């Protein structure tokens, strides 16, 4: 099953290599890995998804902890969490198809970020299956190019032990638009 980890690491050169090397070395296949800054300049945050069974998932966590630069690991697979992926999709849009594509984008609450004579570029943010859904309906028009960031994830509700996050807990579940809309 797909496991999602939130990993806080020291913001130092080479840390991404250490994390990636660990997965290679222990023969675990990374499905997606994103890394970026956090509210603390000395801390970076990774969201890693890996296909692993229960025992493997636990070992991945233990091995991540063995890395000296890793501050905190959370397996949020079974936690209520917000998971987001961002995609930019360049789709062929001739004059006659253009309005259909725009309509589909709007149903998925995606934004058009570039318009060219023969194509539209759509930006969409959401859970992975929502993006897959848009992709599916756009495919008949001709997807010319696509890029996805890989997922970023955050637990709902109270902040994680490592994050001194600002603001009050947001108890209200954010709306999720699925592709079945």
């Amino acid at each position, binding site marked *: 099953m797909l496991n999602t980890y939130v990993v806080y690491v020291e913001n130092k050169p080479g840390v991404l290599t250490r994390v990636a090397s660990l997965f290679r070395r222990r023969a675990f296949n990374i499905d997606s890995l994103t890394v970026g800054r956090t509210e603390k300049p000395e801390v970076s945050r990774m969201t890693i998804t890996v296909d692993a069974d229960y025992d493997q998932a636990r070992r991945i966590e233990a091995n991540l*902890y063995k890395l000296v630069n890793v501050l905190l690991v959370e397996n949020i697979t079974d936690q209520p969490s917000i998971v987001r992926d961002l995609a930019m999709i360049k789709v062929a849009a001739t004059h006659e198809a253009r309005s259909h594509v725009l309509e589909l984008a709007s149903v998925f609450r995606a934004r058009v970020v570039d318009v060219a004579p023969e194509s539209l570029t759509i930006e969409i943010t959401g859970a992975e299956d929502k993006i897959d859904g848009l992709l599916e309906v756009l495919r008949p028009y001709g997807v010319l190019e696509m890029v996805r960031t890989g997922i970023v994830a955050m637990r709902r509700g109270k902040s994680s032990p490592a994050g001194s996050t600002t603001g009050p807990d947001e108890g209200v579940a954010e709306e999720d638009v699925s592709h079945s809309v």
Partner: protein
Amino acid sequence: MNDKNIAEKSATSKSMAAKSMSGASILWECLEREGVTSVFGYPGGAILPAYDALRGSKIHHILVRHEQGATHMADGYARASGQVGVAVATSGPGATNMVTGIATAMLDSSPIVCITGQVGSKLIGSDAFQETDITGVTLPITKHNYLVTHASEVARTIREAFYVARSGRPGPVLVDITKDAQQTTCEFDWEAAKPQLPGYRPDLSPEPKEYEQALELIHHSKRPVILAGHGIIISGAMNEVREFAERTGIPVALTLLGLGAFPASHPLNLGMMGMHGEAWVNHTIQEADLLLAFGMRFDDRVTGNLKTYASNAKKIHIEIDPAEINKNVKVDVPLVGDLREVLHELLPKVESIDRSEWLDSIDKLKGDAAVRDIQNLPDSGHLYAAHVINDLWRQTRDGDTVVVTDVGQHQMWEAQYYKHEKARSLITSGGLGTMGFALPAAIGVKVARPEAEVWVVVGDGGFQMTLCELATIVQEKLKIHIAIINNGFLGMVRQWQEFFYERNYAATPLLNPDFAKLGEAYGIRSMTVTERSQVVPAVQAARQHDGPVLINFRVEQEDTVYPMVAAGASLHEMIRRPSTIVETAADE
């Protein structure tokens, strides 16, 4: 430089706390403050500033003949003393030559710090002369590593390196220092350079509930066995393990690296387990209803086929590294923490239970083992390695003796026929199985414990991998005894070819030089032994000689290590030594 000197010198400088020093001088100063008295190294371009600054240091530098040797020496030093061993090399080939020694230390959890020079920080990435990305190369085989590009980072990095190397589950740490970081100066302030490792947590301890679960399993077991590993020695828990075994009446089986952690002569000592463990030890494990794994990691050489491994036994795993839990063998109760501390918690709560029935049944498992023992077979006039090692043990057993072995048949015979009573009396490469380990590791042992009698037991194959370090022995005037178990083959590989490749001895026969002449060429007193009657006199002569001695034991060429669990076979399926007396009896 001692604290007084520093205080005096800093008094004249602008700052009372700090003084200006080169990165190279800071390096040696920090090593001294970490308690280092000897380092093993080999100079070269990128590390020259450090060597230039060495003259201001009290540290004794031992010039090796190959950087692999330096790492094994640091490793041997660490294993013999429990202190961090230090190896020094230059960039590029100097650093890459260290790789085998670093991997050896990694797999056997040995605390070493490797210092490498690196090209100037502005040249990094330019494929400069002797530039290698050694932190990249050693990333998967170090516990942690560092690239230092400023003199101001040297002190903290060295402090962190030593702390990481020796704490928790120990391991190798590499510190790569650019030439300019060695040359430039900065303020040195030891106190201000405290380790900053917010993500590093070597001190774990079990939950109270886990202790209770463990105690319940222990008290309800009928057929328990302690599996004693290297972690006992690293943790310094020899007395606690002994007390635990005696109080609970539980017998102790040892891993190769655990040998010495529990006295061989103790009535509860079963002996070595695993691929070349004694048959009754493996049978005991297979029949047990509870395994107590103390600081061992269920390596494939001790478990055999995992599907059939101790299938009726519950398992308690006391282990400092959480990543080892459930890695190979699924355990019922993990106790993650320092073994000594965990046993301190358990000891007052364990009950004494009469285990005589179980111990009697283990005695029966010994069966015909004594008859099959090569020591009890009729003298065929041949010189067997097992005889050499057993005689060596009888001669040296009463002293403070450390045996350092290489890898292969002789290593297994040593494990079987040299009865280790004390921790750190056997130094051997277990996890990586590094041929060429013994000779340099023994140098490290002798430097760490000059009062100990050090014997190298090495095969003719492995000896030739690092024999250049004979020169180091002579140059350092080290009294090390070298016993070459010379069978003219890569013996263990030949044995596998015998059993599993229809005796196709491809690339295993060795055409060797005259090792005695070779030793003499280095100025080492050397002799050759071909008969059993000469073994004891040769050992005695070596012990009496004031200096290193090399003995070339020319042993039976096609001898085999028994028993043997074939790779992937179940632990109870052993190939046993054929015996004229028991050949017709039903075999397991």
